[in-house]
């Protein structure tokens, strides 16, 4: 039928373009106004910055009055370390659960499934108590531990389904050669699951990078703020300084935007592939 409905196609594109504008407009609005003078922000909010209106004063103020570089570094550390741990530890567990039949296998699977449905946030009262006792409040370690615990269940599910698709012959061939189970995992399974990492990344990295709750509770000060919390605190202080507010938002958006546009193909594919299951 496809090609018979040409006029309908134009309407479809109009609808999609309009929605795309609605989805991107607000973000673009912030980005273009971040580089304009205060007067231009109010006089002509939709205009692009030009020779007369261009300024980076907002960014200067952000860098002068806050530790943006540090926040960014904190976020990066927490996200990357969490992701690496989730993938590694998750792959080990997924491998054990899909490869070996042992009593309790299903039970452990169900036990892990709780974490997919029940948000770990609801345990915050105890988590905070525990972190106080462990002397981990205001450390990135506290955040990493919580995020790894939060990300593991779904990662194990996704990686398990992926490991199942790796031909069994490959492992059996290695076993016939007398390779140990640890070596099989490290040198056959780990390299082969790299395509699944994109999927795991969508589901674990993004929520970790963007989270406000746990940074607010577990590491709200001492220069351990993540970028999300840092922006939140900064804007709370400088509400009326439009240049600084817009600049800080732009600084928070830009890295995600660049990374997303670079890797969107993998991320989107990972999301739809994960959804098919």
């Amino acid at each position: 039928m496809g090609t018979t409905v040409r006029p309908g196609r134009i309407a479809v594109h109009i609808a999609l373009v309009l929605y795309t504008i609605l989805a991107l407009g607000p973000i673009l609005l912030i980005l273009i106004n971040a580089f304009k003078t205060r007067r231009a922000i109010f006089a002509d909010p939709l205009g692009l910055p030009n020779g007369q209106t261009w300024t980076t004063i907002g960014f200067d103020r952000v860098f002068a009055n806050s530790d943006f570089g540090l926040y960014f570094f904190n976020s990066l550390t927490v996200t990357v370390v969490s992701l690496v741990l989730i993938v590694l530890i998750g792959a080990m567990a997924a491998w054990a659960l899909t490869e070996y039949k042992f009593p309790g296998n299903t039970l452990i699977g169900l036990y892990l499934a709780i974490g997919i449905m029940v948000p770990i946030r609801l345990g915050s009262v105890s988590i905070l108590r525990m972190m106080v006792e462990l002397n981990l409040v205001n450390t990135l370690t506290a955040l990493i531990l919580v995020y790894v615990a939060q990300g593991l269940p779904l990662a194990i599910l996704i990686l398990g389904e992926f490991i199942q698709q790796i031909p069994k012959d490959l492992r059996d061939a290695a076993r016939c050669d007398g390779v140990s189970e640890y070596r099989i995992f490290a040198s056959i399974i780990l390299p082969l699951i790299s395509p699944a990492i994109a999927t795991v990344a969508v589901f674990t990295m993004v929520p970790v990078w963007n989270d406000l709750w746990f940074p607010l509770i577990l590491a709200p000060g001492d220069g351990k703020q993540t970028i999300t919390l840092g922006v939140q605190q900064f804007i709370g202080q400088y509400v009326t300084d439009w240049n600084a507010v817009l600049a800080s938002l732009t600084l928070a958006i830009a890295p995600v935007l660049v990374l997303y546009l670079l890797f969107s193909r993998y991320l989107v594919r990972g999301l739809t592939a994960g959804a098919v299951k």
Partner: protein
Amino acid sequence: MTDLTASQIHSADAVPARSRFPVHIAVFLAPALAIYTLFSIYPLIDTIRLSLYTGDETGARSFVGLQNFQTLLSDSNWSGQFWNAFRNNLIFFLIHMVVQNGIGLGLAMLLSLPRLTGGSVYRTLIFLPTMLSVVIIGFIWQLILNPLWGIAPSLLKAVGLGSLFGPWLGQESTALLTVSLISVWQFVGIPMMLIYAALLNIPDDLLDAATVDGAGPFSVFWFVRLPLILPTLGVVSILTFVANFNAFDLIYAIKGALAGPNFSTDILGTFFYRTFFGFQLQVGSPTMGAAVATAMLIIILLGVLIYLFGVQRRLQRHTF
């Protein structure tokens, strides 16, 4: 004699093989189970335990049974706030179900049209807001809707709807709806992607067969595509439910912990935060906080159980 030795050797060989502890399995599982149990399951259980205690200024705790819940549901200082937050949360959820999942379904339908040019570009761009932090999104919309800046009113004026504008985030009557729609705007990409993937999974032959059978585009959607994506719509609904009853960041970023004006945007997440950490004159209470968290846990578990046993079982997954 020879028979005996043979069987002895056999059994001697078999017993250790069976009882040998599979060390490698334990090694593979231990790190995941340890971290997950310690920082996810234990805190949840401990929170439930804490909800049965009360603490005084000295930090001493005493067991009070279900008294915290009684306070939460019937004490005039608490129950009004709790039910208000619950009701708002329900509205928040219903708006997501109708608007977010409705638009997501519509976009997915358009994107799954055969031989659509630029489909992946639309998909990528529409999904973009989902990748940003809720906090950032909250601030962006706060600026746009700010009457001081005047972007929203002037845009509305341009399309002839200028009179509609009001300080939507500041009015008690519109704040919750506005906050909900901002969240819808951000997360529309998720149902869109999930439904899109489900629609792609339906073989073209099936749609062709329906066309040959005389079904028009609407009938194809209603009688063939919709029934086949029902399981995905179920997954989308439960994901929306869990996410909405666990939401916090957006309200906190836009309206602060007090979820104003006059608690009109207060949902369970912000209520939990205030109870736990305190606000203004009220002192925070870990045990009451635990009780609120436990109540949220029960609500979410109820939703999940209704889905698992009431909905999911009736939705046959189709393999093609």
